[in-house]
């Protein structure tokens, strides 16, 4: 295992500084409750926020430097860093909102839906570490470890609301199916190692050739794809998503739908683009079929949903289908040109990241609105389209912001979602995926129907006669942090995307 032997000299501490900082934060937030007792609920989130801020700064300091550590196993190139920014921002606003709702001095009067302990913060920080390592890893073993680091705290977070049966159910279902999928990933990795004898992406890249008939390798990469597919909820590995997103506290669902999906896609793009791109001719059919299936099944299922959280869950599945286009584009582009270290990532990576950024803020914003509307998670899990009828009359601000996020998810102009789709589809078209793009566009047309169904309910229907679940939204001002950040990001990306695109233009394959 030559690729995994490294001496202390190969460790670049500046490259891994963000994860060192966050890991330290994990320990502090985990141990602090013993020392601080009751005050931990106030101090813990503060520590978490400071740690995240420090991690953000230390990431920003190595922007453009292309640092790598552990003999290139871990790379802090701009792709990693851009993804890290997304993870950290998402975690930051989620921490604020969760604190706002569950801290004793800010808690809503009924006190229901209280998180059992302040452990939620170390758990969330662990997820962030997993996500950063996932996006930085260039070695299958490290990727596997990162995925597990990210997943295990999520199983707990999904079940965080002890007073809700659905939350417990979500946790268990997520864990069982997740463990099952991890098995596939591990088996796939071992098959690849058996075939190639190496686990580093670049070593795999050099070793695999499209002409050799190495079926062990092909089976291995197919199973690794299954493992990844589970994480980002591709069809047919998606069945857990609606149950888990519905049962988990709304903000945790948003956290999963945004951060986990972004981390998963960064890892997928890296593995397919930097690892097995010479085998593009072999995997593209499978990926294309999965992409078409994912967007179609996601959208078709969303059509009939009446529970908002389930609807958003299916919507997030459909978005994963669109994002797979980026994997195809990268595969095609790089299998033709050949990957060279330091080369710009190309417009495929650029539009994948732009799309991700737009999607992430729209989906977490939507979940945050649900969280905002329902004082307890038990109700949040059951919130139906009928419950938000006439929302504009009762809470015009909630309605307007929710509508904005839904427009972005549906891909309407002046929102990030429109430009994300525009760049992604245009790029796919110029790489010759005409049928898939037509298919994706038809899907986008179809999807607009169910997003608009919610907006119609909010704006064009009168309030329901029976008491609605969202009569009394949380009065807590801190939740605004999430919603306004998402609003700003959605409009910023939609109206002046140049700034972000400029940043992405310098995203390159690390040396």
């Amino acid at each position: 295992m030559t690729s995994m032997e490294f001496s202390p000299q190969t460790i670049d501490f500046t490259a891994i500084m963000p994860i060192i900082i966050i890991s330290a934060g994990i320990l502090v937030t985990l141990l602090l409750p013993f020392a601080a007792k009751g005050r931990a609920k106030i101090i813990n989130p503060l520590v978490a926020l400071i740690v995240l801020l420090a991690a953000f700064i230390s990431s920003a300091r190595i922007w453009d430097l292309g640092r790598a550590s552990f003999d290139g196993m871990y790379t802090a190139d701009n792709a990693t860093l851009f993804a890290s920014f997304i993870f950290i921002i998402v975690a930051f606003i989620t921490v604020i909102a969760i604190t706002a709702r569950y801290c004793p001095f800010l808690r809503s009067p009924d006190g229901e839906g209280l998180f059992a302990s302040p452990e939620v913060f170390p758990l969330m920080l662990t997820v962030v570490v997993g996500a950063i390592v996932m996006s930085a890893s260039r070695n299958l073993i490290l990727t596997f470890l990162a995925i597990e680091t990210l997943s295990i705290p999520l199983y707990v977070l999904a079940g965080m609301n002890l007073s809700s049966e659905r939350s417990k159910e979500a946790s268990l279902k997520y864990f069982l199916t997740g463990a099952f999928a991890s098995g596939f990933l591990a088996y796939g990795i071992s098959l690849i190692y058996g075939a190639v004898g190496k686990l580093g992406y670049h070593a795999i890249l050099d070793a695999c050739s499209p002409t050799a008939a190495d079926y062990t390798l092909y089976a291995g990469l197919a199973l690794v794809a299954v493992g990844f597919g589970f994480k980002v909820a591709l069809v047919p590995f998606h069945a857990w998503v609606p149950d888990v997103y519905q049962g988990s506290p709304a903000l945790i669902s948003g956290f999963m739908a945004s951060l986990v999906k972004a981390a998963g896609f960064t890892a997928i793009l890296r593995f397919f683009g930097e690892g097995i791109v010479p085998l593009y001719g072999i995997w593209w059919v499978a990926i294309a079929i999965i992409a078409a299936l994912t967007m179609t099944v996601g959208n078709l299922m969303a059509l009939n949903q009446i529970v908002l959280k389930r609807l958003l869950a299916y919507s997030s599945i459909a978005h994963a289908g669109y994002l797979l286009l980026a994997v195809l584009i990268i595969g095609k582009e790089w299998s033709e040109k050949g990957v060279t270290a330091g080369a710009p990532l190309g417009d495929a990576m650029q539009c994948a990241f732009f799309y991700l950024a737009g999607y992430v803020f729209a989906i977490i914003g939507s979940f945050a609105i649900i969280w905002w509307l329902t004082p307890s998670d038990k109700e949040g899990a059951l919130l139906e389209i009928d419950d938000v009828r006439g929302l504009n009359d009762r809470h015009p601000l909630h309605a307007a912001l929710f509508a904005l996020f839904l427009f972005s998810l549906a891909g309407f102009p002046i929102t990030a979602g429109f430009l994300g789709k525009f760049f992604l589809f245009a790029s796919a078209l110029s790489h010759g995926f005409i049928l898939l793009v037509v298919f994706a566009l038809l899907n986008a047309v179809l999807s607009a129907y169910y997003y608009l169904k919610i907006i119609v309910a909010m704006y064009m229907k009168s309030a329901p006669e029976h008491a609605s679940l969202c009569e009394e939204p949380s009065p807590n001002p801190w939740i605004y942090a999430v919603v306004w950040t998402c609003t700003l990001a959605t409009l910023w990306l939609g109206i002046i995307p140049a700034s972000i695109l400029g940043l992405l233009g310098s995203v390159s394959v690390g040396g």
Partner: protein
Amino acid sequence: MEMNLLDLVGLAIAFPLLGTLILGLFGRFMPRIAVSIIAPATVGLSFIIGLITLFVYRTDSALIGGQPYVSYLFTWIQSGDFTANFSLLIDPLSITMMLIVTGVSFIIHVYSIGYMAHDKDHARFFAYLNLFVGAMLILVLASSLPVMFIGWEGVGLCSYLLIGFWYEKASANIAGMKAFVVNRIGDFGVLIAMFMLFASENFVSLEFLDINGAARIFGETNYNSPFIIAVCLFLFLGATGKSAQIPLYIWLPDAMEGPTPVSALIHAATMVTAGVYMLARLNVLFSIAPTAMLVVAVIGCATAFFAATIALSQVDIKRVLAYSTVSQLGYMFLACGVGAFWVGIFHLMTHAFFKALLFLGAGSVIHGMSDDQDIRNMGGLAKRMPVTYWTFLVAALAIAGVPFFSGFFSKDEILASTFWFGAEFPSGKILYVIALITAFMTAFYMFRLVIRTFLGKPVTEKAKKAHESPRVMTIPLIILAVLAFVGGYVALPHVISGPLGYSNPLEQFLKPAAQTYQISEHPVGEAYGVASAEYVETIEGVSVEGEDVIHEAAGHGEDEAHHPADISWYLILASIVFAGLGIWGAYLYFRMTDWAKLPALSRLIRRLQIVNDWSLKKWFVDELYQYTIVEPGKVLAQISLIFDQVVVDGIVNGTAGFFAFVGDRIRRFQTGIVREYALGILLGAVSVVIIVFITRMVL
């Protein structure tokens, strides 16, 4: 960048949007009167800016000959070598559209104050209406396809919100949804076309000026190439969605569920003409794809005819007008399709006046009839609602194409253009014949409507108690009636204006922006789309100052075929005769019994009737009309209606049903049992492995 007064045009968009913001946020807390002032005022300001823009543009020495001016606001998208600026394009076409949109919108805003006086949600209504004006101005002023698309989606959204405005009505919600789904299909076409241009190496940017410029060069080598045809047809698919043409017209008649001012503004005067505007805007692109132009002409002509046959038998006053709108939009596309883009815009303008007037008049009638829309329950309203009657009559005369009214000039221009198109391209003659028959039907159904609504005796109690609308509603009617009458004089036919030594100002104005571009290597015969614009220019032949510059700038001046003036006169005569026959036919079929109490027009027609009775037996005429026109017309109308309801509706509803069904089927896999989820993952994994293996083997 140097500041120019023309940069003020951005404010025209800002005012209505500001109005939306104010009314949307604070409208519910404001007194009714404040809302009633703010909403029309913002649009009025936009109109004034439109006038200033026109004046500055006409007097700016740097912009002689229709040179476009681009007002840069900010850079929207900058990605690699692709840039999309958020900028506004000021040229004769956009100024014309801007004035039409803001002018008609302002009048309709004022009217709405009266119409919505008793609605509890009037602040919300005006917020949407202002938003619509803002979006529509973005649409017509945008300098590039992506920015236009913002407006395009925006007006669609407002249309949809306003159709469903009375959400208590279930039918309004369904209609809103239908409009939305159908329009998305059209948007899909625009997006595809945009992506194709974006991906093509020959088109460097999506700015309109660049697209047309690139098309000019590209056309030299790729005249009528499959790529261009495909782009144009996808754009046209978008246009058929927004402008309600076959096959996507079905949403428009249902859209009449919204409040009547909305029907007047959005579903008659402005938004639905967006498709026509887009074609005129991309005139060069379309000109290098004659096959696509032919499709546009044929679809437009077919829609004009088809919708007119349906209008013959409708009994809901707004539905008659809705089908009539579809039919008139068909005329506009016919004009564009035969290459007379400026004529399409001309008809767009006159249509905006008289159709807005017809709808507002209908609104006044509905108001007076306490919300009854069935024309079988009306009759005799002329005496009870004189202002509404006379203004409605002006509009009806205009749309029917009676000489001296605006619709006559624009429709005649379309018919003439189509005729000359037929002269260049023989099978095109059938388009002319169909368009002429449609003109007859238009006159017929319009006067059927006038007679059954306003003349004769009141049929019901409601009709007897009908009352005139308040002044805030009737004054807009009068203004629009004036416009509907004089609107045509900005572009008199050349056989009339030529001898008078009077040029055609609208054409002169629009020509640089909205004419067919001719590829030098392809003579007129081949580029048959070019024919009519050519003839128009030639006939005119009068030298006006600065005209030479225009000619040269537009690359015209050769290959001009002369169309004899006497034929032009025959064409005018033909359209007069057909319009007259239509009115006469309607009168004979729906003639009055109570002659003595009839208003002036009916007495006049009655005199004609006596002459008629004298020579032919009355029953015989009846029979004749019955069996030659009315019965076949009824059958045709019936067939059209069945086609509409069974086939087209079936497809739309069927599609929705299909997806719901499939969704339901898939849902059965979602059992909630973890064991089965795991099984799904396992089966999926096996499938992926098998697919990868198969791909490898096939490779």
